[in-house]
């Protein structure tokens, strides 16, 4: 698969991953570009990527961890930036969606980084082997880690946000 194919195929997916990790749109764009930049440099150097998807996620996640440890990271933007612009009905609906999203991010933030990452990766449809590669854990323990993360997510939901999701 050529670089362009990989770029077109996974760009949106990576961006989505970043946004789900609660990175601001701007930073998310930067991280995505940087990840593909590294991938491109790797290809130019003749590195063979057996699983480019897992590699991209892994690099992205590592960059995210570095960003979290850096001083410039403000802990995400969703919670602060989502405000309704006006009070029309459409805006109200939009506001409701945004509010729900804000709560989702707030809830995800209550989970550990690893739990959050494995749940998002699972949601993105990565195989257990790919998740193991991205999270740098034993492939045999992915099932256990995933089940525990699901339990913690449910527990968080039960305690804080049950009303928000019970009708779904």
């Amino acid at each position: 698969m050529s670089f362009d194919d990989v770029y077109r195929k996974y760009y949106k997916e990576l961006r989505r991953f970043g946004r789900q990790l609660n990175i601001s749109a701007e930073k998310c764009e930067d991280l995505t570009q940087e990840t593909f930049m590294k991938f491109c440099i790797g290809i130019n150097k003749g590195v063979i990527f057996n699983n480019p998807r897992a590699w991209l996620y892994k690099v992205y996640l590592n960059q995210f961890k570095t960003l979290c440890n850096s001083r410039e990271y403000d802990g995400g933007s969703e919670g602060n930036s989502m405000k309704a612009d006006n009070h029309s009905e459409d805006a109200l609906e939009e506001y409701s969606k945004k509010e729900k999203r804000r709560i989702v991010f707030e809830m995800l933030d209550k989970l550990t980084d690893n739990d959050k990452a494995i749940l998002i990766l699972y949601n993105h449809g990565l195989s257990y082997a790919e998740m193991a590669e991205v999270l740098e854990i034993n492939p045999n323990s992915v099932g256990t880690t995933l089940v525990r993360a699901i339990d913690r997510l449910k527990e968080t939901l039960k305690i804080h946000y049950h009303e928000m999701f019970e009708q779904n």
Partner: protein
Amino acid sequence: MKCLSRIEIQEFLDKEIEPSLMAGISDHIERCENCSKLLGQAVADKALIENVIGKSGTMEDNIPVPEFVQPVLYKKRITFYRVIPFLVAASIIGIIFLFRSDKTPVMENIPEAEILLYEYYDGKDLNKMWHEKSQIIILQDEKGNVIQSIITN
């Protein structure tokens, strides 16, 4: 067949179990009420994840994929901070050379004839050929004191 654990059920749901075992597990789940319940729970959990996490990234779906700008091979900018370690290392080496203790030449192992020769020519470098051809005659008294030294061509 034994009942499955939650983890095994999850793996079964995600098709992460060996294909040869899938049919057997599927049969067991159909017959076992407990495992069937666990599978139902796992399916509900998956839907919950989709509902909670899946929708949180949908705002990115409408954003177009921008053109990728190929990286230019860049040269690292040499800033003052990068040079500091080298400057420090160079200064340390310089100080060591300036204040090194072995400045005075060691005289012990040099034969007396050589010393005399050195003194005679006021410390100047000798022509190697001349040095090999020349002979030194040293006259000493009974106590070993040098009375006279003669250098011949």
